[in-house]
Structures are given as structure tokens and as C-alpha cells.
């Protein structure tokens, strides 16, 4: 059996995926070195390497067993995620007025909402795996997956962590786009968007979040308009990205980043630091890598041997896609500021672990594509 496993790994191992991930992660570590140095926390990049190494092991462990085992325990995994989310509401650690973390003594903190993104994908994949359709789906057919999404969303919002909740919604919508929908269903979903939007604005958003959105709109019209208020981060980030020009200011030579103009730059704005120091060439290269990664996810999905694998690949791909778009978009001022990390690039254990889980699942689906 081990010989067979080794054999399969040699023939069917997804080298492209691996190389993409390694390049992005290594670039991210280098970028963190610059940030950490400027901030007087020089060990930042080392911590990130430890997490990447640990996450790599997790990814490997996740990749090896046939993913159909995950299909079998799909709802169980989903339920574990929900339980963790409930747990965090009671015993979670509160930081900056939000209760998002479970503390495991000296081991560190875990953010169940990060994990939930992946578990939601697995749950939805299991649901759709057993629900093949030939006809287009009606609105009523979408109720169960919608409820499966709304439950963790509600729990995450009450932490509160609006960014992750929003991601859950986007994951759900992306996966539903994979299925065959009736034109009317599509219409109903589209039409309900503004209604949900207005409701969310009135009851869900906190004043500071509303302010961010307002500031975002005003800054789209006039970038200088709100540069001292809520638009401060966006304005500084845009300046950082733009000031990189073609070739960038050089590694560790940034101005905006190292001079504390960007709060939370190692988690929320690593792209600004990167674009400032590496310029257009570096930034486009990074964006290109992410683009290839996401298209690769779609390819893995298309080549998957079953529905479960396809939904997993698309779901994981959508996590990557939306986080990349939101994070880079907000760094460039075309998306409102939402606390969403840049996959494998941002600093943070929970974030790295989640994406490594994703990579493990992708690899798994990719490796087992020919298996019957």
C-alpha cells in the first residue's frame, strides 16, 4: 500500500498548485520581513514561517486520504464548525470589542469563523453531492443550502465579524452559481440583494462600519474627500500602492508602510506594503499568481471525478477569489475596508491554517481525480 501511495503521488501530485502556493507564501514571508523590521517586531516573519510549516503538514495530512471520507463525515464536520462558533460566543477571547478567538493555553488562539468557511464548503458540497438535478433549480431548492449558510453567518455576525460573514454569503452564492438554476431563481436572488442590503444597513451594520462604506463611496468620487476621517487608511493605502510606480521603492525601502501610516498592515494591508516596495512589476506578478491559482482551482473542479470534488474545488476557489479581490481591492480603494486577509500572504495563524486546509482539500481532489 505505501508503494502504491508513493507511486500515485509521483504521477498525480499537483506540482503546479504546489509551486504557486510556495511562491506566494515565500513572497508573503519576505514581505512580512520588511513590515516587521519597520515596526520593530523583527520576528514577525519567523512566526509566519512556523505557521506555514505547520500548515503545510496539515495540508499534507488532509491531502492524503481519499476525499470521499470527508464526504462521508461532511455534516459532522459542518456540525463541529457550528459548535465551535457557539462555543466562541461563550468562552471566546475578546480582542478589540469582538469575541472571535478560542484560546488554547500556550498553543495560541484559533478563530473558528476562519475554519467555518472551509467547513461550510464541505457541508454544501455534501448537500449538492447527493442532490443532482437535470432540470434547473427553483427558489425553493435553494432554501436548505441557504439556511446552512445563514446559521454560521448569524453566529459569526454576533461575534461580530462582518467580513467573514460576508465571505460565507459569497461562498454560498459562488457555489450556487455552479448549479443549474432556473432563470427565475436567478432573478429572485438578484432582486433580493438590494432588499437584504437595505435591511443589513438599517439593522446589522455598526456606525463605524457604515462610516467606512460612506467614506468609500465619497472617496470613489474624490480620493481626497475623507482622507482625514474614516478614509484615512484607504487614502494612505492608495498612496502607498501608487507611490511604488513601475519598479517600486525597493525591499524594506517603503515610506508609507514603515512610518505607521497603515494600521494593521501585516494582516489587512500587506499588499500595499508589497506594491509600494516592488512597484507595478511586482504587484502585477502577484495578482497574476493569484489569478492562475484561482483558474487552477476551476480546472481542478472541472477535472474532478464527482460532484463533491467539484463543489469543494469551486468553494475553496471562491474563498481564494473573494479574499483576494476584497483585500487587494480595498488596498487600492475600489472595495470598502473590510477586515479580510490576503490568502497565504497576510500574517496570522488562523488565516494560514485555513488556507492550508483549503490547499490540502484542493490537492486531495486533484490527486484523486482519476480514481474510481
Amino acid at each position, binding site marked *: 500500500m505505501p508503494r502504491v501511495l508513493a507511486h500515485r503521488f509521483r504521477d498525480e501530485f499537483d506540482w503546479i498548485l504546489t509551486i504557486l502556493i510556495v511562491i506566494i507564501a515565500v513572497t508573503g514571508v519576505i514581505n512580512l520581513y520588511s513590515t516587521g523590521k*519597520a515596526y520593530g517586531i523583527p520576528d514577525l516573519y519567523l512566526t509566519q514561517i512556523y505557521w506555514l510549516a505547520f500548515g503545510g503538514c496539515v495540508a499534507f495530512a488532509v491531502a492524503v486520504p*481519499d476525499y*470521499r471520507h470527508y464526504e462521508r463525515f461532511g455534516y459532522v464536520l459542518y456540525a463541529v464548525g457550528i459548535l465551535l462558533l457557539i462555543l466562541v460566543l461563550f468562552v471566546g477571547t475578546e480582542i478589540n470589542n469582538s469575541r472571535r478567538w478560542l484560546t488554547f493555553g500556550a498553543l495560541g488562539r484559533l478563530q473558528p469563523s476562519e475554519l467555518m468557511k472551509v467547513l461550510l464548503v464541505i457541508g454544501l458540497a455534501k448537500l449538492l*453531492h447527493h442532490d*443532482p*438535478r*437535470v432540470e434547473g433549480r427553483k427558489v425553493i431548492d435553494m432554501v436548505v443550502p441557504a439556511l446552512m449558510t445563514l446559521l454560521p453567518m448569524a453566529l459569526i455576525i454576533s461575534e461580530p465579524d462582518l467580513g467573514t460573514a460576508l465571505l460565507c454569503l459569497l461562498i454560498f452564492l459562488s457555489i450556487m*452559481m*455552479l*448549479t*443549474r438554476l432556473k432563470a427565475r431563481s436567478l432573478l429572485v436572488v438578484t432582486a433580493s440583494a438590494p432588499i437584504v442590503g437595505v435591511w443589513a444597513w438599517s439593522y446589522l451594520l455598526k456606525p463605524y462600519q457604515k462610516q467606512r462604506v460612506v467614506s468609500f463611496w465619497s472617496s470613489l468620487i474624490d480620493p481626497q474627500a*475623507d482622507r*482625514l*476621517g474614516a478614509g484615512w487608511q484607504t487614502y*494612505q493605502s*492608495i*498612496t*502607498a*500602492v*501608487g*507611490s*511604488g*510606480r*513601475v519598479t517600486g521603492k525597493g525591499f*524594506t*525601502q517603503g*515610506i*508609507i508602510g*514603515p*512610518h*505607521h*501610516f497603515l494600521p494593521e498592515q501585516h494582516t489587512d494591508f500587506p499588499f500595499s506594503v508589497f*506594491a*509600494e516596495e516592488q*512597484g*507595478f512589476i511586482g*504587484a*502585477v506578478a502577484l*495578482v*497574476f499568481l*493569484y*489569478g492562475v491559482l*484561482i*483558474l487552477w482551482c*476551476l480546472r481542478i*473542479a*472541472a477535472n*474532478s*471525478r*464527482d*460532484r*463533491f470534488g*467539484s463543489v469543494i474545488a*469551486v468553494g475553496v476557489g471562491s474563498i481564494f*477569489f473573494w479574499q483576494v*479581490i476584497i483585500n*487587494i*481591492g480595498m488596498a*487600492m480603494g*475600489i472595495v470598502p475596508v473590510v477586515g479580510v486577509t490576503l490568502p497565504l500572504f497576510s500574517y496570522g495563524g488562523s488565516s494560514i491554517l485555513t488556507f492550508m486546509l483549503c490547499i490540502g482539500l484542493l490537492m486531495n481532489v486533484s490527486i484523486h481525480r482519476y480514481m474510481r
Partner: protein
Amino acid sequence: MFVSSRNEVSEFRRRYRWMRLFVVLTFIVLVGRLIQLQLVDGDEHHRQSLANVIRTVPIPAVRGRIFDSKGRVMATSMPSHSVVVIPHYFDMGKGFERLTEFLGYDDEQAAKLRAKIAERLANPKDMRRFQQFSVADGINQEHLSTIKAFMEELPGVDIVDVPVRYYPYGSMGAHMIGYTNEVNAQDIEKRRGMVEDPYRSGDRLGRTGVERMLESDLRGVRGWRKKVVDARNLPLMRRESETLLPEPRMQEPRAGNDVISTVDMALQKIVQQSLRGHPSGAVVVMDVDTGRVLAATSKPAYDPNVITSGLSFEQQRALNENIFRPRIDKTLYETYFPGSTFKPFSAMAAMEEGKITEADVFHCSGFHEFGRRTFKCPKPHGDISLRDGLVVSCNVLFYNLAEMTGMDTIARYAREFGFGAQTRVGYNSEASGFIPTKAWYAKRFPGQFRIGFTLNAAIGQGNVKATLMQVAAAYSAIANGGTIYRPQVIRRIETGDGDLVKDFPPEVVRRVAVSQRTLDLMMDSLVGVVEDENGTAHGARTEGVDIAGKTGTAQVVRRARKPGDDLNQHYYLNRDHAWFAAVAPSIEPEIAIVTLIEHGGAGGEHAAPVAVEITRRYFEEIAPRQEEPLIAEEQQPPRDKAPLVVDEETATTASTHRH
């Protein structure tokens, strides 16, 4: 169990193409935005990123010093520090607590400061959030070092050097030296584009006296230093940051030039002391051969050290409502009837025009009738010559003289001597005084010109007005053979290193068209005023003090007594001003001393003794006469045993003698 058909995947098949398209399009948008930010607007963002972190910090220029003619410091700048807050970068939490703790604020002060900062931060568009404002001026060394040590914890707090002007002599010569205070918005606006280094909020500006006159020389040009700061406005020490600074990184300030005055503060002190007992008055001491002002005092004065740091409302009111008008420079800005001190000029006009000679004898019966009016003399002087008329200050003689000479002729000579026009000494607002003419009267009082005007003008009343500075310049001309010098208070302007910037040699305005014979007669008359038994200033004559001068009494416009008036004050304010215009010594005069005691009464009684004391001490302490010893050396009393020490002033002289 694991069996599931690949066919089932067909539901998803046609979706991937759309998804790929969506992903590609979205990434194209991202790249498009990168192109816009980095390639199209890159330079602008790059400039902005530098502007974010590079601050230009002004380095104030040290204002030039003012010295007296002997090198004593009259005005200088002392280092002082202020704590300023820039609201935008300020930390209202811990930083606020720290700052108020360091400054020793109580709760009320802290609340006030909090409100002030909050007000400036209320509106994000209010640019005052970036303007620093001072929270403590003139902080002591202890506070300074504490705050400096905790700078890291005090974002948005800065220490700025604000040199404070210091006047070691206090109120002595205050009007002449002047003072500085902070510029206001109008001052800045008015001088925009007119000076090399535009004024900014917090700068100081010379307001009066020499400080104002030589503002552009004294001020200097501020320098600057570029530094890198982070988002909290804290200076950064990173080596990488240093390279961001464009060259040059610093411009040294250029210190203001030093000014050397003609004034001698030791003499100024003597003048001040001689005026004791007189609440209000003024003295000008002038070098007759150069027109240089050696002392100029207007009493009472204010302390420029207090004014320069800003007056409270009460202090201002006290200063403005003081009946002795301390703000007014009585040597330049205030004009008085010159009274009898004007008589020599009327006399010279008559003599030069050949209307009278020194041999002519007039008769004074105590009054002079003209038409229906009677012009009085203090007492009947009997038969009297011109010289004696000046010595006893006979009005009747001058009424006669004026009738013969005429108003316009007297006015012409008076103008020759500088009356009726500003002396252009330049350090304060100056009144030009007034010499009336027939034409002026015709305009002012239409109808028949009355010769009575002329009679009054000849004795320095009527509408004749003069400043002390004018009288000093005119009497200097009598003493120096007829040269009118422009009065000067500035001797030299030098750089801080002592290099000459500008010299001020004596400036001759004109030589008066009066013969030496006439001038000699005037000098003889002035000597008589003091030396003759019946001279009006004979009472002030002091043995060993060689002084010649003319007394005068300037009539004061009578005030009606209102109910509730302070009786003493009423009598005081209705008393005439006392003049004494003098030169010393009587042979080859060196200095002119013009003294005016406001509401002093008769000149001979009140003004002359002041001038005599100044003269005595001037020749004892300031410029001892180097006379050939008349008596043989051994016959002189031994100096060591002489009780020379009378007071502090002579104590210094005594020690000089012993050398």
C-alpha cells in the same frame, strides 16, 4: 458505497466557462486599477508619500541685540521654550494624561485643554487640527527635560524654541528702545511679499522705538531643518528614513544684526534720577556737534519686559487710563507750547532782519496794550535791552519786537531752526509741531488778521507747538554756530560678529542763515539766565556747574472743574508746564539738555534744577573735563582721603579715579 456517476457532474459542466470569464475580467479590473495608480498617477502618489513623512521645521533666528554707545546691553533675546500640541496627532488618552501630569495641570485646566483640542478635531475638514498651539510658554528646565524624555509617549506634542526679548534696564529709556510682541493676522497679511522671510503666526514684531525702526535689521532670517516623521508625527531615527530627505536638509538661520545706539544708559539713569519727584515729564540730552541723542526720557514709562509678553486686560486699561499717559513718548509725539524757550528765535529773526540791535532799549511797564486787549508781563521790568529781556524773560519787549518783525518773518526763522517739521529721528511716531503764519490764520480765522496772534506767537504761545526733540536740535544749533543736525539715536549697525553693516555719520540738515554775532548774543543771554542775579534760572545755579539756558512756561488749557473731580488732581492738571532748554558748558558747548516738567509750574523753579543736576553729573561721571591743572599737583588735596563715596554712582567714579 463510494460509487457516484461522473455523469452527475454534467450539471456543472457549462458553468466553468462563465466562472473563468468572470475571474479573468475581475483580475483585469485589478490590473487596470494598478495601472491607474502606479503608472498613470504614480508620480503624484510618490510625491504625496514623501510629503507624508517629511516635515520642515523652522529654526527661529535670534533677534539682534541693542547696545548703548558704551556697549551696555539695552535689549537682548533669551532662550525660552514652549510646549505645543498638534491636535491631529495628539493622543487624547494616555498622551493627554501624561502631558497634563507633566505640566502640573489641575482638573479644570485639563478640562479646558481637552475641550480646546476636541473643538479642533470636531470637524474632519477643519484644518486647525494640523495647526500647533502652545499649551505652556517659558517652561523651566525641569519640565523641558521630562517632556523631552517622554517624547515617545507624547505623539503630537512638540517643543519649540521661542526666544524671549529681555530689556535689562526695564522701563529706563523704554520709549526709545521700544518693545516687540507677537504678530497678528493683519501684520502678516500687510507684510506679505515685502520681506524676504514672511512673518508667521508666533513671530515677534518690533512695535515701537528702535525695535520698530530697525525691525528689518534686528529680525534676521529664520532657517529650517527637514526631518522624517511617522504617522504620529514622531521623529524617526531609522537610517533608511534619513535617505528620504532631499538635499539640502537644513538651512541655518541668520541672526539679526546688532544695533549700537547713541544713547548712554549711564546718562539715561542720571536723567531718570534727576526727574525724581516729578511724576510726568521728559528730557532730551543731545550732542550739539553731531545731533546724536545721548539720553531721551519720557516719564512715566512702562516696563517693556511686561508689555512684550502680552498685557492682561486690566494691565492695558491701567496703562491707557493713567493720567500721566505712560504710553506717549513725550519727547517726540507730544507737542507743547514752547513758551519763553521760543524767545531766542524771535529775537534772532528781529536782529537778522535789522529790526532791532543789541543796543536798543525797550520799556516794560508790566503790560502792553494792543487795541482793546492788554498783554501782560509777569512784572514791570522798566528800561531793558534785548539781552536782559531774554535773561528776565520780558514779554513786553517781545510784544514790541513782534510788532516790528511780523509773524511771517519769525515763522521763517523758526522753520530755519527746525520748528514746524519732523526732525526725522525716526524711532517713534513723531509730531511735526506747528509754526503759524498769517496765511494760516487767514484761513483758520477768516476776517481781519489780528496782530495779537503775532504777539502770542513771538513768546511761544498762541498756536506755536514744538516737541522736545525740535527744541533740542534748535538749541544745539545756537550752541554749535548754526548747524541743524538731524537727531540720531543709532550709531552703527553690526553683524553679531561685529562686522560693520551700516554706519550713521552725523547728518547736517542745514546751516541756519544767522550771523555768529547774533548767535553769540543769544549764548550770552542764555548764560545770563543762569548767572545774572535777575536771571529766571538763577535760583537753580549751582557752583561749579557751567550751564546756559532759557526757561519757559507753557500755558495749559484751563480745565473747568467738574463736580467729583479730585481737587489735587484738578490743581495739578491746571498748572503750566515748566521748560528749561539749556546747553553746557557755556563756552564751547558739548551737550544740549531740554527738560520739560509737565504741570511743573515755572520753568526756572522746576525744570532748571533738573537740567542743572543732569549737567553736573554728566561732567562728573560721564565726560569728566580734562582740564589743565590750575594749581600745582602737591597743593591739591590728596585724592585717596577725599570722601568721594556719596552714593553708588560716584562709587564707580571713585574707583576709576584711583587707577
